[in-house]
């Protein structure tokens, strides 16, 4: 464990999960060949003010997704209930999900991803939102993993196949890509469902 090493440093007194996360990512081991495909559900599309509602993720090792080794946690926003986005996400409406403090969710997430390569559809948004939460709860901490965006990968693939392609962003929404690659959406608008669908998409286009 890297705990003692970090204790002696001048860095703030981070929890063990964060210290482990840094060590994994700082060491000379390089990145692991594993991918973590993630998706977040939030109350708004604006990173600066969205409430993070849930994070879902699956791991890909050797082109294989282990159902058991998936990640799906829900965040207690501290607000009593209805936000504009509830209808889409049905997270709060169902009321059955066990919600956790944002800090605990973030730590569990760091532990889960380790030094895997992160993959998401429109990754800038999900990574940006998680980074905003990290800096609010653990100042100075942000995701340092390599990141791949499935929308970008799809565009690159298309441009490789056809250099003169006219780019139309509408063709690269998750729904459009799932349809094009004949992936039946598992359960849209749940973080884990979308993460799984994105994982299948990633396997097909990577």
């Amino acid at each position, binding site marked *: 464990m890297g705990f003692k090493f970090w204790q002696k440093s001048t860095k703030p007194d981070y929890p063990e999960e964060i210290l482990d996360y840094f060590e994994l990512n700082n060491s000379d081991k390089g990145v692991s060949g594993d991918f973590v495909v993630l998706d977040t559900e939030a109350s708004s599309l604006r990173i600066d003010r969205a409430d993070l509602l849930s994070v879902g993720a*699956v791991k890909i090792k050797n*082109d*294989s*997704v*282990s*159902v*058991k080794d*998936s990640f*799906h946690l829900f965040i207690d926003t501290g607000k009593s209930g209805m936000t504009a986005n509830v209808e889409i996400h049905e997270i709060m409406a169902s009321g059955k999900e066990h919600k956790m403090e944002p800090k605990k969710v973030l730590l569990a997430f760091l532990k889960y991803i380790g030094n895997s390569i992160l993959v998401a559809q429109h990754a800038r948004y999900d990574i940006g939102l998680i980074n905003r939460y990290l800096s609010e709860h653990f100042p100075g901490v942000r995701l340092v993993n390599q990141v791949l965006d499935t929308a970008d990968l799809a565009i690159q693939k298309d441009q490789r196949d056809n250099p003169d392609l006219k780019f139309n962003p509408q063709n690269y929404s998750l729904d459009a890509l799932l349809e094009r690659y*004949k992936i039946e959406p*598992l*359960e849209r608008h*749940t973080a*884990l*469902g979308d993460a*799984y669908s994105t994982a*299948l998409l990633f*396997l*097909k286009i990577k």
Partner: protein
Amino acid sequence: MANIISSKIADFIIRFPPFDKVAREEIIRLSEEAEVLYFKKGQLVFQQKEKAKPFIYFLKEGEILLNENRDKKKVLIDACDEGELFGVRAMLTGNPYVFEAFCQEESLVYAFPLSIFKPILESNKDLSLFFAAGLASGQKPSGFQAIYQQNKEAGGADFLSWQRPVEELSEPLICVKPTVSIEEAAREITAKSSNALIVKDEQGKAVGIVTDTDFRAKVGGGIALISDPITKIMSIQLISKELGLPLAEYVISMLKQNVKHLLITKNEEVYGIFSQQSLFSQLQLNPFSILYSIEAADSLEKLCSYRNEVASFLKYYLQQNLKISVLSQLITTINDALIKKAIKFAIAALEEEKYLKPDVDFAWISLGSEGREEQLLQTDQDNAIIFGEVDAAQLNYTREYFIQLGRRVNDTLHQAGFEYCPANMMAGNPDWCLTISEWEKRFQGWIRTPEKQALLMATIFFDYRYIYGDQGLVERLDKHLKTEIKSNRIFLNYLAKNATQNPAPLSFFKNLIVERSGAHKEDFDLKGRALMPLADIARVLCLEAGNITIKNTVERYLFLAQQDKSRKEVFIDAVQAYELLQHFRASEGIRNDDSGRFIPIKEISKFDRQVLRNAFEPIYALQQMIELKFQLNYFN
């Protein structure tokens, strides 16, 4: 922990056999532990000879071919369809993979850990049966017994009673000496409230049987006096059968011999009488009533109407899962009775119209599937007439008479629901209403000049079966056929080649074997692709073995299994496959009210597809076998 991925996987797999037989909680537990594997086109899920992985695989999407690497060649063993399991043999045995699993297309596979799957398998009887029956991809079919077993348990009590061995007889055994008077015998039979008795000689040998009907008709009718010895009214046509056979055996025997009582022996000693009365109590919709109606019919209209009862009879017993060979024998017996009656009517009608019956013997023969005793549904009629030699002067009139006879019978059968043969292979056609020597020449021509058309004829005509008239004519034709084949062995190579024309359908995958053109574009040709190849192979192998008298495909394979012990297994597989396919065809035919020949692929349930696919395996094996045996690779 259950999550939405595992519950979606569970929702998906539970739709496919054998998971439809597994409790939902167990499916969920299995899905929670699943791995979702992705393969690009051309990748292998596992390699041949690779150590078995601790998973069983389920193809979610894509196409996987199970290939065997044999002498640097890849041999396709099976194509795995979406929703199917593979890697089963390695799972069951723990041995390395015997095939490779090749992704013919980009594929998504669920891998379920054996640590979870095996305990479920071991505790679930339906699941064990599924694998025992060889229903998963790449599994060698270990026979269809397991499926029958499954069906049997689902079937009604009536079905069970057909297969159940008869161990007891309900009627008391009454034996009398030949010297006893009719009066004494009548008293005895009344006292024991039976309806038949056996007449035994001094040595204890049964010499005759006397039934209620004999007392009524012969004594009541004044043929005998009550003081006469019993032998005067006994019937000496004794059909005996050992005790302990399945009920169906007795039923068929009575139907075929047209008797109402059977003498039952135990260790060859007279044991008792088995009568139809005792059957009526046991069987619903019994075949006897139809048969008697046909025999008692006094008009053509009546005769034709009875045939319709056969359809409901067939439907009922198919649902009861009565063994198909029993059922087809029952149907054949009924059809034969109908044909015989139609011939009698035609002879009588011709006589009334002053067509004098020529003074020469004739025989009516059934051809094709009817000759093979394999007609279940009313399909086409194929039949012919053989008549004896006459002087040249007589020939025209004689032929004209038999053509007239043939036409009338053809028309009657048509009214009774048997379609006219589209190729006009019917007794009313002058081409197929021939003297015995003309027939011999025909057969000789087909055998010595085996052109395409001749081979087609051979596959229909060589399955001829005697129905009515002089059996001697048919026996003469038998003899001729046997000799001709013996001295023209090359004919068998042509016939064998013909039997391998339609390659065995290996899979339903991607409509691989759907008819490519015509009205049945979306259909699977069950007769052409599966039943006919099996019947053709049985025929050529039996002819080769010198057996020309067995016509029924199942019996041919049973004969072959007896003859060639080293290939017994494949022949027995063929028997089971053939019965299963016939059953399937009849059920489909009844469901769609047609001949059952063409089946819309989309309507075949997943389970039936797997069952059917396994039934195709023996076709493939047999085709390979005869290619070697007749060296068809070197033969053009």
